[in-house]
């Protein structure tokens, strides 16, 4: 067996071993969508904290626009996914609303609205965690 063949054999073994645990690594599509939306909800919460501490609006707006895009994509994906995903869709919509409200509040420098939107994002994140725990 040449060195090259041995290297190829080791690489193939690693690939197969890794593929075998792919399902464990990534979960179902709905779980992946939920994880992504959860990240965006928590991002919105952290962004609200940063906003209350006087962080620059431009950077926060970019962060929130990115979150908004992710959640919008997630909702589109859920629409195309087979099965009943009513609860997850509702939680994703709550997240999207919180992100958009926060974006407006940050632009207006409205501290009360920032706190409210941050709390709504946290509630959405908690809901998503509860949804995941039920699986």
């Amino acid at each position, binding site marked *: 067996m040449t060195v090259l063949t041995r*290297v190829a054999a*080791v*690489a193939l073994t*690693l*690939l197969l*071993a*890794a*593929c075998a*645990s*792919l399902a*464990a*690594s*990534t979960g179902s599509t709905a779980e*992946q969508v939920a*994880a992504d939306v*959860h*990240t965006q909800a*928590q*991002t919105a*919460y*952290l*962004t609200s*904290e*940063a906003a209350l*501490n*006087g*962080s*620059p*609006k*431009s*950077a*926060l*707006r*970019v*962060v929130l626009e*990115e979150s908004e895009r*992710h959640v919008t994509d997630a909702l589109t994906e859920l629409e195309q996914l087979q099965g009943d995903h009513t609860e997850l869709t509702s939680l994703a919509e709550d997240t999207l609303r919180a992100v958009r409200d926060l974006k407006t509040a940050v632009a207006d420098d409205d501290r009360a609205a920032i706190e409210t939107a941050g709390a709504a994002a946290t509630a959405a*994140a908690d809901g998503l*965690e509860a949804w995941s725990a039920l699986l």
Partner: protein
Amino acid sequence: MKRILMLTLGVLTAIGGFVDIGDIVANATIGARYGLGLLWVLTLGVIGICAFAEMSGRIVAVSGRPVFDLIRERLGPRVALVNLAGSFLATLLTLAAQIGGVAVVIQLASGIPHVVWVIPAGLALWLVIWFVKFQRIEQVLGLSGLAVGVFGAAIWWLDPDWGALAGQALSLGPAPDEPVPTYFYYAVTLFAATMTPYEVFFFSSGGAEEHWSRKDLGIQRANVLLGFPLGGVLSVGIAGAAAVTLLPLGMDAETLGQVLLPAGIAFGLAGMAVAMFGFFACMTGAAFETSMSCGYALAQFFGWAWGKRERPKRAARFHMSVAVVIVAAIAIVQTGVDPVMVTEVSLVASAVALPLTYLPILMVANDRVYLGRHVNGRFGNAVGTVIMVVVVVAAIAAVPLMIATGMGA
């Protein structure tokens, strides 16, 4: 006194210049997912880059020639061509990631989409390379990169559970509920981020540009052995800040904006501004180093006249190739691809290319024809060999792990 000043400046430059977009993305992603649980990989990577950068610096100082010039001579053009192709592609992708990263940082500061900033950022990079002196670029960007230390300060300011952080730092494996392949995928990318091939390309060629000789051995060794580990501390700061703020919320770090949030939460406007400035400096510095490294690699392989100090007329093909790789990198990022995604791909490409870069260095560093009595000692070879084994395992495992885990999903 002048030598002490040179040493201090060199070390500070090495610290600030150590971090690039690969380190930022890898450390933030890992910090959010595993806390400081992969600190052992970062430590291994820092030991590796110190060992091999020291070897390549010594090769330049003793032989007066850059490492890859000798590799071609030592291994022959065919093997060296494989080496060139692998390292060049990895470095080109890394350059694209840096330019994309710079554009995203400007987007965060201005609110204007990053695709608008890609061409101006690339053009500004080329102008800096064309007009500003080598040492000035390195010093200004390296020292400015120290601003990334704001993440370390943020950890302290946020007053975390230090016991939990220490517990993470001392752990050597994934948590029971974490998939093992994903853990090792991130371990490989972090190792590749720490030992990115361009670092030694640039270090050795830059040494030749600055005419290092035997009497500079001490200073170059100090720069490497002090600067790189302290640069590693900046990386730990980024991972730690993510561990303190993102990990408890169970979220991922997917964008540079999310990576900045801990600085904003700790210090508000000032924190975010300093962090953005630090990112900008680190990525611009790395873009300079990667674009020059592409030019160095091509010129040294084909035997062209090369060097930033060389007048364009005398080293036309070298200067042209630096300009062309910048254009190619701009073209990659201008497609609208996410710079963080480019970074992740470039880290996997770097992991695959690692043996092509580091094995020849180990061989040349043991060759008495070039180094005489300055060849590796037993300790250097022991460290080099251990790191080489890790490098080969990381290179073999990188692509299968990337496919199997869906890039760490």
